C-alpha cells in the first residue's frame, strides 16, 4: 500500500482539488463541456456539460480524502470543501483570463458560450461566485460520501452513476419502450425531452440505491446473472433458462430497437467480430498486431472484387464469394505473419502497423486501380440473399452479423480451453520456455494470425455487403485502433470483455453523437488509465483478474482450499 504522504494532508487535498479543477479546465478547452451542454441529465437542472467540469473535482477530492484517511469526520468534510474550493479556483482562473484576454485566438473552444456555461448562465461576477460555491459544495459532497458507511456509500455511488447513465441514454430508452404499450407511458413519465425529469431522477436514484444496498447485504457474495461457469452455484436449469432468455432477446433486438438503433447495433456487432479475432492474436497469443485493419480490408475487397459487375464480367453472389474471401484472408494471415515470426513486442507492433498502411496505400493507388478501384473504391457489391429474399436492410443484415458473431465467439471460446489455446497462452507468457517445451512457434503464431485474419475478414465481407461498396479511405489505422482499444479496455484475452468493450466503446459514441468528436481522445485516455490502474480490463476472464492486478498491487489473500481469492482493500 502506498506510504502515507509526508506532506500535510491539507496540502495534498488542496493539490488534488487543484488538479481536478485543471482537468475541468482542460476538458472545457477541448470542447467537451460545450458539446455536452445541450444534453440534460436532469431536465432543467444538470447538463452533461456541467457534469464534465465538476466531476473531476468531485473525483479528485474523493481520492485525495481516501489517500489521507483516516481523519475525523469534520476534518474529512473540511478537506473536501477545501479541495472543492481549490478546484473552483482553477476554473475561476480560466474565466478571469478569458475575460481579460482573447483566448479564443488560440483555443478555439474558449468561447463566450463556454464562459456562460461555466458561470452557470450568470453575469461575470455572480457567475464566478456561484462557480466557486458549487465547486466547493462538490468537494464537500465527496467528503460526505466518504464518511458514509461502506454499504450505503456503494449504494449511493451506484445511484448517482445510474442516474447519469439513464439520463444520457434517454433517447435509447424512450425509443425502445415506446412499443411497450401501457408501460411506455410509465417510462415516458420519467423523462423530459432531454434527460430525466426531477421526479424521474429521484425515482431512479432511490430504486438503484435500494437495490445495491440490499445486494451488498447478501451473505453469499455477488449473485451474478452472467456467471455461466460450471462452478457457479446455480442449477443447470437456471443457467439454461438465462441463456435461453438472452438468445430470445438477441433475436428480437432489431424490432425492439427500431431502425436507428439497429444501425448502431450493426456497427457494434461488426466490431465484436473483429474484436474476437484480435482478442485471439493479442489476448491469447500476445502478438500486438496494429495492422489488423489489413485483414478487414482484404476480406471486404475480395468480396468487392469478386461480386461487383464493375470489375467482373461474371460477378459471383455473396455466398459464392464468401468461401474465397475466407481462404484469401487465411492465406493473408499466414503471409503477413511469416515475416514477423521472430519479432517481439514493440517491433512486431510497428511492423504490423506498416503492413496495414501498405495494404491501404496499395488499395488507394492508381497503380492497382484496374483491379481494386483506386480511390473511388468498388461499388455495386452483391448482398447476400436467402432464396428470393435479399438481405439488404440493416435489420436483416443484423442477423447475418449475429450468426457471424455467434460462430466466431463459439470458435474463440472453444479454442481458449483447448490445447491450441494453451499453446498460444504459453507463447505469450514466455516464448523461450514454451519453445523449449516443444511448442512449434511458427505454426502456433501463424495459426493465431490466420484465425484472427479469418474473423476480421468475415467482418469485412459483411461490411462490404452492407454498404454495397468499399473505399480505401475507410480501411485506415483508426479502425485498428478502435478494435485494439475495445479489447484492451474490455479485457485482454477475455471473451466477455470483447462484448462489453464493443458495446461501450463503439456503441456510446454512436448513441451520444457529441462523443464522436472526442472519441479518440477518450480512447487514448482510457487506454492510458487502464494500463495504469486496471490492466486486466473492465470485464476480465475471472481468473486473469487475480494476477495482472497483483503484479502492480499488493497480493490478495488466497484461500488454500477453494483457491478463491478475497481481495483485501487495505492500507
Amino acid at each position: 500500500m502506498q506510504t502515507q504522504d509526508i506532506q500535510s494532508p491539507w496540502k495534498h487535498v488542496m493539490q488534488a482539488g487543484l488538479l481536478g479543477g485543471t482537468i475541468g479546465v482542460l476538458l472545457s478547452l477541448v470542447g467537451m463541456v460545450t458539446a455536452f451542454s445541450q444534453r440534460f441529465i436532469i431536465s432543467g437542472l444538470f447538463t452533461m456539460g456541467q457534469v464534465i467540469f465538476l466531476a473531476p473535482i468531485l473525483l479528485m477530492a474523493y481520492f485525495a480524502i481516501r489517500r489521507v484517511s483516516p481523519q475525523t469526520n469534520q476534518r474529512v468534510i473540511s478537506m473536501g470543501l477545501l479541495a472543492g474550493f481549490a478546484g473552483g479556483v482553477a476554473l475561476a482562473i480560466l474565466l478571469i483570463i478569458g475575460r481579460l484576454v482573447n483566448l479564443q485566438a488560440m483555443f478555439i473552444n474558449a468561447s463566450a458560450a463556454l464562459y456562460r456555461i461555466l458561470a452557470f448562465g450568470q453575469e461575470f461576477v455572480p457567475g464566478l461566485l456561484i462557480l466557486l460555491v458549487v465547486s466547493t459544495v462538490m468537494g464537500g459532497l465527496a467528503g460526505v460520501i466518504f464518511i458514509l458507511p461502506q454499504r450505503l456509500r456503494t449504494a449511493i455511488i451506484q445511484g448517482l452513476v445510474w442516474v447519469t447513465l439513464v439520463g444520457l441514454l434517454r433517447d435509447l430508452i424512450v425509443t425502445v419502450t415506446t412499443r411497450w404499450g401501457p408501460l411506455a407511458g410509465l417510462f415516458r413519465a420519467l423523462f423530459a425531452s432531454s434527460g430525466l425529469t426531477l421526479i424521474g431522477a429521484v425515482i431512479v436514484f432511490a430504486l438503484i440505491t435500494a437495490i445495491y444496498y440490499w445486494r451488498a447485504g447478501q451473505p453469499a457474495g455477488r449473485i451474478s446473472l452472467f456467471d455461466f461457469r460450471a462452478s457457479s452455484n446455480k442449477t443447470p436449469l437456471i443457467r439454461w433458462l438465462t441463456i435461453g432468455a438472452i438468445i430470445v432477446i438477441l433475436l428480437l433486438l432489431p424490432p425492439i430497437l427500431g431502425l436507428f438503433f439497429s444501425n448502431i447495433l450493426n456497427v457494434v456487432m461488426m466490431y465484436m467480430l473483429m474484436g474476437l479475432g484480435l482478442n485471439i492474436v493479442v489476448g491469447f497469443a500476445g502478438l500486438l498486431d496494429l495492422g489488423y485493419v489489413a485483414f478487414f480490408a482484404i476480406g471486404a475487397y475480395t468480396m468487392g472484387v469478386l461480386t461487383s459487375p464493375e470489375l467482373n464480367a461474371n460477378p459471383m453472389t455473396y455466398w459464392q464469394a464468401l468461401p474465397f474471401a475466407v481462404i484469401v484472408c487465411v492465406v493473408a494471415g499466414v503471409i503477413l505473419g511469416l515475416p514477423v515470426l521472430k519479432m517481439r513486442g514493440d517491433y512486431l507492433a510497428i511492423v504490423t502497423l506498416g503492413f496495414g498502411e501498405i495494404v491501404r496505400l496499395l488499395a488507394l493507388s492508381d497503380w492497382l486501380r484496374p483491379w481494386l478501384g483506386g480511390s473511388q473504391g468498388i461499388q455495386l457489391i452483391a448482398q447476400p440473399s436467402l432464396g428470393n429474399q435479399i438481405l439488404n436492410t440493416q435489420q436483416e443484415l443484423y442477423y447475418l452479423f449475429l450468426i457471424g458473431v455467434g460462430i466466431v465467439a463459439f470458435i474463440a471460446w472453444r479454442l481458449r480451453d483447448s490445447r491450441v489455446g494453451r499453446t498460444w497462452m504459453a507463447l505469450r507468457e514466455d516464448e523461450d520456455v514454451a519453445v523449449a517445451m516443444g511448442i512449434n512457434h511458427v505454426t502456433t503464431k501463424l495459426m493465431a494470425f490466420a484465425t484472427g485474419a479469418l474473423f476480421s475478414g468475415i467482418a469485412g465481407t459483411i461490411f462490404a455487403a452492407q454498404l454495397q461498396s468499399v473505399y480505401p479511405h475507410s480501411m485506415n489505422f483508426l479502425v485498428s485502433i478502435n478494435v485494439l482499444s475495445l479489447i484492451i479496455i474490455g479485457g485482454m484475452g477475455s471473451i466477455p470483455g470483447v462484448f462489453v468493450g464493443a458495446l461501450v466503446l463503439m456503441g456510446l459514441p454512436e448513441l451520444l453523437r457529441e462523443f464522436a468528436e472526442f472519441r479518440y481522445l477518450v480512447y487514448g485516455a482510457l487506454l492510458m488509465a487502464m494500463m495504469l490502474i486496471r490492466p486486466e480490463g473492465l470485464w476480465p476472464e475471472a481468473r486473469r483478474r487475480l494476477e495482472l492486478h497483483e503484479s502492480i498491487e499488493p497480493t490478495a489473500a488466497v484461500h488454500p482450499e477453494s483457491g478463491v481469492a478475497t481481495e483485501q482493500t487495505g492500507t
Partner: protein
Amino acid sequence: MGVLVARQVTKRFGGLQALNKIDLDVKENSIYSVIGPNGAGKTTFFNCVTGFYTPEEGEILLDGKNITGLSPDRVTQMGISRTYQNIRLFKNMTSVENILVGMHPHLKSGLIGGILRNRATVQEETEAFEEARRLLRFVGLRGQGDMMASSLPYGAQRRLEIARALASKPKLLLLDEPTAGMNPSETQEMVHFIRRLRDELGITVLLIEHQMRVVMTISDKISVLDFGEKIAEGTAADIQNNPHVIEAYLGRGAASGLGKSETQPSAAD
C-alpha cells in the same frame, strides 16, 4: 556409457571462454550434481545440453544419440526436461494448464479438434487432465490445480515447475538450483523429493546446486566447474577433500585443511 555423455564441450561468447573442454558421463538412474562458484559455467552447460546454446566444439550424446546443436524443442522431444534458476512458470495460467503445456509433445489435438471437441479430443483432454492432477499430487500440490501459477507460494512454484518438467516424461531432468531461496525444512523436502524422482520414476537427475549439504547428501557423483573448466569429479567424499575444490570456493589460503566442517553432511540429513 551413461545416459548423458558430454565430450570436450567448449562454448565461447566472443572473447569469453565460458566452457572449456568439459567431459561428463552421467549414469542412468543416478543423481549427478554440477557445482562450482558463481560464473563457473554451470547454467551455460545446461543451456548447451538443452539446445539454447550450440557449443563451438565438442559433442553431447543422449543415450548414444548426438544431440549437439539441436533446437530446444527437439531436445525436449528426445527426452530431456529442465527447470530454471529463476522459476519461469507461465504466470497467468493455472497450475494444471502449466503442466498441460509441459505435456505438449505427447498430445495431438489441433485447431479443428479443439473447436469441434470430437470424441478423440475430449478423451485426450480428459486423460491429460487426469495425468496433470496426478503429477500435482506427486509433487505435493494436491487441490491447487486451478490456482494461478503466480499466486502460489515460492516453494510450491518450484515444485510446480518440476511437475511441468516431468509432464513431458523425460529420461533426464535438469534441475537448476531447485533449493534456491528455501529454508532448511523446505530444502529437506526437496532433497527427499529428488530422491523419489530417481527411485520411483527412474529418472536421471542432473543438478546444479549451491547448498553443499544438499549436494553432498544426495549426489551419486559430483563434478566441479570453475571458470569454465572441470576441476574435479567424484563422490561426495572425494570432492570434500579435494584441495582444488576448496581453493576454488574459498581461495588459496583455505586449501590447507579447512572446509571439512562446512561440507560434511549433518546427522539430521
